[in-house]
């Protein structure tokens, strides 16, 4: 086998891409090639939202055992609700709404890390309990009314060019940036160092508190951005809009090849895993299988892909 091919096959994420393509192919065989492009466009559009939050969740999980952000759905809801209400369907307010969503994310991140650091609460509990506060704040703020997004924003969020959704293109770019940040900046190295051996990282001169703080804020800001665009995409902020992203964000991170034990993160795998999860569901729906069988098969397929992706290699 040529060295280049072999090198690619050794990448932990390649199997998830292969699985995603296989699932798409199986669907195409069933529909005799009908609607293949549309299916891909839809997969890209939905995977975009998974990837935005998964990028943040991935960084948090990489901080090591016990680190996970469970407040992502509530943060999405709060940011989406606040932004759509303030924008009040006015195109001129889009930028203000976006900045406000960022501010919500920043506040959430600060609050979460405050609980974790100052009150010494384990992250899983801290983010779970804060998520109730954020969810309640969203309910209190808007009484559950659904306000439409400004038309221009809705257009941006749903438009595609030659089958590639605009947002997907932007998030692919974002993923590339995060990939570079992870591998080529001192911050990225610090995150993976802390995740492997926190004590060694501190003794090697890394400011562990600052790295964890930045990471929780980063994750919360991305969740807020996701809430902003998802409410534009889906015709307004709904109180349960984030629900699906709680487990989805973790599943995408893990299937994408990031180590649950921390210390090793993988950006290319996020896109593959997000597409894969969407395509599996689409395929099983196309086959017209019953709900029970669909769930069983989804579970089995995920296990199969994780086994095929195999053990991890030393990073370089």
């Amino acid at each position, binding site marked *: 086998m040529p060295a280049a091919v072999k090198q690619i096959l050794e990448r932990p994420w390649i199997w998830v891409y292969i699985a995603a393509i296989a699932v798409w192919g199986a669907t195409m065989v069933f529909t005799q090639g009908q609607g293949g492009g549309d299916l891909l466009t839809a997969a890209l559009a939905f995977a975009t939202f998974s990837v935005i939050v998964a990028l943040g969740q991935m960084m948090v999980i990489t901080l090591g055992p016990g680190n996970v952000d469970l407040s992502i759905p509530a943060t999405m809801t709060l940011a989406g609700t606040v932004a759509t209400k303030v924008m009040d369907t006015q195109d001129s307010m889009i930028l203000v709404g976006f900045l406000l969503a960022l501010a919500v994310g920043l506040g959430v991140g600060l609050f979460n890390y405050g609980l974790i650091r100052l009150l010494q609460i384990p992250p899983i509990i801290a983010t779970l309990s804060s998520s109730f506060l954020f969810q309640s704040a969203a309910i209190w703020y808007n009484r559950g009314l659904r306000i439409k997004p400004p038309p221009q924003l809705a257009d941006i969020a749903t438009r595609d060019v030659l089958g590639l959704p605009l947002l997907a293109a932007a998030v692919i770019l974002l993923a590339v940036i995060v990939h*570079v940040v992870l*591998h*080529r*900046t*001192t911050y990225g*190295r610090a995150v*993976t*160092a802390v995740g*492997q*051996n926190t*004590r*060694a*990282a501190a*003794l*090697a*001169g*890394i*400011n562990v508190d600052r790295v964890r703080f930045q990471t929780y804020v980063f994750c919360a800001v991305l969740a807020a951005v996701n809430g902003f665009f998802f409410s534009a995409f889906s015709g307004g902020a709904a109180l349960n809009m984030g629900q699906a992203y709680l487990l989805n964000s973790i599943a995408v991170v893990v299937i994408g090849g990031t*180590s649950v034990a921390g*210390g*090793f993160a993988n950006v290319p795998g996020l896109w593959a895993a997000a597409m894969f999860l969407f395509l599996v569901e689409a395929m099983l729906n196309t086959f017209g299988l019953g709900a029970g069988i669909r769930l069983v098969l989804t579970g089995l397929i995920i296990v199969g892909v994780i086994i095929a992706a195999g053990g*991890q290699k*030393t*990073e*370089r």
Partner: protein
Amino acid sequence: MHADTTTIVRLDGVEKHFGAVRALDGVDLNVDAGECVGLVGHNGAGKSTLMNVLAGTTSPGAGSIVIGGADLTGAYGVAAATRQGIRCVFQELSLCPNLTVAENARIMHPSFSGFGWRRRAGALIVGKLDEIFPGHGIEAGNMVGDLSIARRQMVEIARAFSVTDTPAALVILDEPTSSLDAHVANQLLDYVRRFIAGGGACILISHLLGEILQTATRIVVMRDGKVVARRPANEFNRTTLVSAMGSVVEERGEHTAAATSRRSSGEPRVRARPAAQTDKLELLAHQGEIVGLAGLEGHGQKEILIGILQARKRRSDMAYVEGATALVAGDRQNEGIFPLWSIARNIGIRSLKSLRTGALIDRTKEDDLAAEWRDKINIRTPDLNNGILSLSGGNQQKTLFARALASDAEIILMDDPMRGVDVGTKQEVYNLVRREADKGRTFIWYTTEMDELDHCDHVYVFRDSRIVADLARDELTEERVLHSSFEPEA
């Protein structure tokens, strides 16, 4: 070879290959009841692999294993080893940190069951600790993770020697004294002598040749996966043993001549006082100086190192430090290595800021830095992009030295960093430390080995988290250090 009933273990032609590396290349070894076999060799000579074979954690590629007269080749594993009474104290400790001392004893002795097993397991392990290490200060209910590395090692040793329904016929000690201070190490070696006099057998692996020569009845020397010499211990002395291992002894006199005290009168770079210090003694370190911290393990040396390390980041009244600091960790697994990273990344982590071009880390610079220090410090690896765990323990330690020395730090703190490092490597590192000091770096060196204090310009002895003696190079003697470590001042 006589096959009488007192032979506990006989290995014939054992081979083990890891890829292209021949870790064991046809090794014969037999151990009889009532003897202590000293096993020596450089890092990577195959000692640890051989012990893993005996412990049943690695199965050999070829060769036969006969235990207690029964040929167990192919049927040998951890369970068989336990049944035959073969016990191991590994170099990397194997206790569960989240369990108590008594609970850890239970893991090895499943016969503790039913009501009150904790109490009985605790009584067994503490009884054994009392027997081996009188005055150890460990309780059955202590959480292992809260114990110092020396005490963890003591628990591990006591557990290996304790007997329930399975016998302790052969106890393998892999670098058992590397994190013990001289006093506790002697307690252990005394016990080993009593144990073999009572009909037990030991294999003792150590880089401290004095220990081997004093304790072992027979010495086996390994090099490159082969046994190159085996003779009764009294036919070896330090020089012949080292030459059998294949390295050249350096005369110690040569070094001492160069090391008159070079304390300058200028401003010190480091000024530190332990929190518990009541009198005026304080630790001073100047440019170009090697300062040793001595005393028994766990008497505040580590705390002051950490205090100095972090003095610039957190304002502390413990230490005033002028210049950047870097630490060489001795507890490799917990405080040193990043196990998922390559050797190059493990070296570069302390120097990331200088490895950047613009905002991004430049991989060429990172690789060049690693390559430079591989050559300077002689890390034995074909490829610096290999995982850090592909290195032997001694070479992992060299990587940690490279991390600190490659950094911009002017003050290098060393936390007993020579644990499990072979004689040749130690000499290389001592010379390197001296060269770096001559270039103007300051070293603060905590060590549990008396010999290493000879390399220091100035020594502070610690007891009960306080500095109790401040010895310049020409005042330094082993007696004075020991005296200060144990006796309260008059």
